[in-house]
């Protein structure tokens, strides 16, 4: 057992032992229960001895004592079992809370570097392995250790030499458990890997089943599922087989030990160094000792998987968030909304720079359009303003304050974002709207939904605002975008960012939203990314990006007059072949 492994176990046990008083009480109850139980053979033996001597006057009292001790011991062990269960579940609750909260502090860079499937395995199967350890293994280990040590004391008092013979089972069992256990562990971890791969693929083709069918790839994907499942089956069979072999193997070792006890004890009884009765007792102890070893053998694999799981969970817990408040971070209760980028360079990964020397200044209250070809870095600028990522060099300021010096909570409260991919939670519509701002009332949310043109379709949902959204599956893409806009309106930010917020919304609806947004944007700074140039034509300034560099900045008219990049971009939407079409007379209105 190396130190890291032990470190993980100790740390896991630390969660279990958080409530010291309760743990102490549970242990005391456990000890009391097993000490009382260890008197049972003595009482029973004495009763049998009396009967063997032909004296039956004490049967009533003996029976009463046996039953009384049993009831008492049952009571104690019931209480300790309950307390251990509470400790186990409390430990799991704490561990899950810690894991969740730690994941919340990690930045997007961390999430970019992890596969979602792997994180998922940590919160499901790794946590489950630890749960098994807490709720079954620990109690078993404690109980077995307790029983074994009580027995050891009694045995030593009776006869140290015979105790040594009984203990011969320990090295034998350790070898068996060690050899089998290592194989089981190896098979188990390759099974985990196989299953991980299998489940990763299954996740992709089940969640992407519509695409699979659209391209008629059912047969190919089914063959692949079959092959991966076949791989997993083989390893799984081996690990299951070996882990079920453990108990009969330990039983064989136990019986070997009993044979030795009987033989050596028999020899010693013949030459008179111990009594026959003592040999009989030791045979009994040998049986019990073996029983406890069997219990422990079952725990071994649970401990192994808990340590493996624990290590992966602690990896997440120990990850350092790379975007945190500076020690002297400043609060920012409100903002005028003046934004400045000065010589900003940025890259997601070291090998590929995305933004080069971006410099621009936005006076408070202006609406800024961001345009440029796909992959130019428009969304990246938004990611930097809200400190989803930190920049490589340069500075970003809001109201003249470097954003790295503003408290992160305040910074993000000042900025409201509608992201490119409309993400909604599996909760009610109302929950998703109220998500925008803590303490937003129902009325405020309904008003925002009306502004975003979402009120009408929300009312047509089965339970209106209280309809639970199944990952948005019951809404069209455009409707989901309307909800995310309403959510941003609820958040009432000082700086509003709309990243392709209306790409799946038709122009008429968009125009109506725009009217609502105009009022909203009137006195606040906003950034609008859109490919439909009509969406941003009225912006105060338009920033034109290409390949991470700012090409031009200025209002629409100025940029058109300059006949540069933007002018070209703008004209390209009126392709020559459309010109004739456009000349068609408009309908009488």
């Amino acid at each position, binding site marked *: 057992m190396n130190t890291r492994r032990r470190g993980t176990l100790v740390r896991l046990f630390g969660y279990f032992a958080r409530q010291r008083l309760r743990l102490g009480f549970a242990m005391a109850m456990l000890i009391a*229960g097993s000490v009382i139980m260890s008197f049972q053979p003595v009482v029973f033996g004495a009763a*049998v001895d009396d*009967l*063997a001597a*032909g004296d039956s006057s004490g*049967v009533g009292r003996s029976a*009463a004592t*046996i039953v009384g001790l*049993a*009831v008492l011991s049952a*009571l104690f062990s019931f209480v300790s*079992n309950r307390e251990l269960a509470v400790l186990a579940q409390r430990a*799991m*609750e704490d561990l*899950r809370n810690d894991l*969740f909260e730690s994941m*919340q502090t990690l930045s997007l860079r961390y999430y970019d570097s992890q*596969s979602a499937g792997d994180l998922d395995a940590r919160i499901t199967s790794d946590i489950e392995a630890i749960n098994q350890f807490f*709720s079954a293994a620990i109690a078993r280990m404690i109980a077995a250790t307790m029983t074994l040590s009580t027995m050891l004391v009694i045995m030593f008092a009776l006869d140290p030499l015979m105790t040594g013979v009984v203990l011969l089972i320990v090295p034998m069992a350790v070898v068996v458990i060690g050899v089998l256990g290592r194989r089981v562990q190896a098979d188990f971890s390759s099974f985990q890997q196989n299953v991980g791969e299998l489940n*990763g693929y299954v*996740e992709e083709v089940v*969640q992407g*089943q*519509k695409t699979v069918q*659209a391209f008629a*790839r*059912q*047969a190919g994907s*089914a063959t692949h599922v079959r092959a991966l499942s076949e791989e997993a*089956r083989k390893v799984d*069979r081996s690990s299951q*087989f070996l882990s*079920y*072999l453990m108990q*009969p193997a330990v039983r*064989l070792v136990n019986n070997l030990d009993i044979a030795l006890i*009987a033989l050596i004890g028999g020899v010693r009884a*013949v030459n008179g160094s111990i009594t*026959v009765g003592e040999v*009989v007792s030791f045979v009994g102890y040998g049986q019990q000792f073996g029983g406890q070893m069997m219990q422990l053998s079952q725990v071994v694999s649970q401990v192994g998987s808990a340590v493996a799981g624990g290590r992966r969970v602690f990896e997440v817990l120990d990850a350092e968030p790379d975007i945190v408040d500076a020690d002297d971070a400043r609060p920012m209760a409100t903002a005028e909304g003046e934004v400045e980028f000065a010589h900003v360079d940025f890259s997601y990964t070291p090998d590929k720079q995305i933004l080069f020397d971006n410099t621009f200044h936005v006076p408070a209250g202006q609406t800024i359009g961001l345009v440029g070809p796909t*992959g130019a870095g428009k969304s990246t600028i938004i990611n930097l303003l809200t400190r989803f990522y930190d920049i490589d060099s340069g500075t970003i300021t809001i109201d003249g304050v470097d954003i790295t010096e503003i408290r992160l909570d305040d910074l*993000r*409260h000042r*900025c*409201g974002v509608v992201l490119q*991919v409309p993400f909604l939670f599996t909760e009610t519509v109302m929950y998703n709207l109220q998500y925008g701002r803590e303490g937003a009332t129902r009325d405020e949310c309904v008003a925002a939904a009306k502004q975003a043109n979402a009120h009408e379709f929300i009312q047509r949902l089965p339970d209106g605002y209280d309809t639970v959204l199944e990952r948005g*599956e019951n809404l*069209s893409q455009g409707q989901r975008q309307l909800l995310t806009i309403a959510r941003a309106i609820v958040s009432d930010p000082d700086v509003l960012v709309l990243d*392709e917020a209306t*790409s799946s919304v038709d*122009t008429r609806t968009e125009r109506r939203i725009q009217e609502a947004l105009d009022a909203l944007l009137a006195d606040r700074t906003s950034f609008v990314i859109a*490919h*439909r140039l009509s969406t941003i034509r009225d912006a105060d300034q338009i920033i034109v990006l290409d390949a991470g560099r700012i090409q031009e900045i200025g209002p629409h008219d100025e940029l058109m007059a300059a006949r540069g990049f933007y002018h*070209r*971009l703008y*004209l390209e*939407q*009126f*392709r020559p072949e459309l010109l004739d079409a456009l000349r068609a007379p408009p*309908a009488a209105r």
Partner: protein
Amino acid sequence: MSGIAAFLRVVGIMPRSQQRNFVVAQVGVVMMVIAQLVVPLLIQDIIDEGILAEDLGSISRTAFAMICWSVANLAVAGGVAYLSAATATNFAHAIRTHLYDKITTLSYGNIDRLSSGGLLVRMTSDVNIMRTSFMMTMFMLFQAPWLLLGAVALVWWQTPELLWVMGAVVLVTAAFVLAVAPALGPLYAAAQRRLDRLNVVFRENIAGIRVVKAFNRDELETERFRERNHDLYDAQLRPAFRVASFQPVLFGLLYGAVGLAVVVVGPDIADGVVAADPDAVTPGELTTFFNYLLTAMIPIMIVAFVLPELSKFQASLERAIEVFETEPDVTQPDKATDPGPISGRIEFRDVSMSYLDDDGRPGSLPVLANLSFTIEPGETVAILGQTGSGKTSLINLIPRFYDVTEGAVLIDGHDVRELDLDALRQQIGIAPQQAQLFAGSIIENLRYGNVDSSFEEVQRAAEIADAHEFISSQVAGYDSMLAEQGNNLSGGQRQRLSLARAINVDPRILLLDDTTSAVDVATEARIQRRLRDELAGRTVVIVAQRISTAIGADKIVLLDDGRVDAIGTHAELMASSAAYAEIVESQLGSIDEVVDLLEHR
């Protein structure tokens, strides 16, 4: 108990070879039970005839016999364990592959209702649960009746006077276990549901991390998580508390029986010793009775342990059966017509459509209503309309992702419901609204609908979709690996790959569902031009929001709330539809302004 029935039903429908495994294993189980009963008897012999008689020869002989029995037990147990492991893992493999095979026959509507998350759980954790409980049941559960029978037989043989004590205590414990254990199944199931609910929050916070951070609502999420986490704590504690009573109660009853036995036969034993009556119960027999009682407790413990597992098994099995019994909404027709190479004429004839509700009946709100129009072969048709007006629903009818509720969709004059499903879909290329890409290389993704396409064909498709350039700028070009969901690309780049993939199918009909919404106008213009030149003669249906996408189409269909509001060319619609003219003006500005601009370029 119904869990056992479910288990046996599964065994009943397994292939012959697996049933043979099961039967052989059960023979082995009986042998294991015999060994387990014989070994304690031998130990008793060692004590009675060896140690107490101080006969070393007898000790070694009996000990040797005992070791032989243990080795035999290990060998048999090994065999049973192997057969159980093989059968259980074969079963898991079979369920998994059959489930997936079934899923591939389900239509979009079935998938919507079963939810892809739900299907995923059935394929992963449910299979795991069934495998574990299958193994446990096959190896362990059927030891229980034999062990009980053996223990009773032994008591009957050795101390018939105490048989009723044994019977009484076994009945009481069995009653206790049967009272407590069956309730555990639902309690575990409830805990599992809470766990699923908690994991939803976990997963959403990974998938939606940007939203959580953007709105700064980590406190709300933490609160939501803590609340559900504590619910889970309560739910897991409930069965744990019940289980906590098992071992104390069983041992209490065991010693109660011992006490009872001492009172019942104690006087007889003492009298027998005094009278030296050879027929009386001996003190040794009382000890033996105690051991048999212990043996009788084992099967009860086994049952208490396995029953809850079996109810988990049953729950998971029922969820799998739900999938197996699902009738696909869209099926291959009995007498499928093979249309051969199609020309691409599409006719919507009085089409109405509602999505099915959870019971599989058409919902009351029609998404499309009495829709009729025709698309001629080689035409490019744009579908416009407000959010929620039914654009995506409309094009999903063409490859039969969903079926109409009334009316018919015809391709080359054939009702699509009469055509061979594969033959139909192979001639249709679709780029859906959300560009779903798979982990793997770019070229693998592009070849997804046409595995045998040559590199030149793939490259041509990428060029048409204006994707060739950015693919080439990737470190490994076409062999560059995509992250999950293509997350290492921008939104516009993902869309262009999805488009190239659809083009690479070399379809007669190309369906583009708002495929260029995240692509800039200049790039889109290039794509449109190339589509027109390179895919001449193919039918193209484009769902669009941008007027620039629609304007060059041969025909524009303007949808409003599931009905055709207007249909015609751009010029016709400009003249006839106020709604259309409004869309054009809102996006492009007034015509005079545009003309002015263009003439001064």
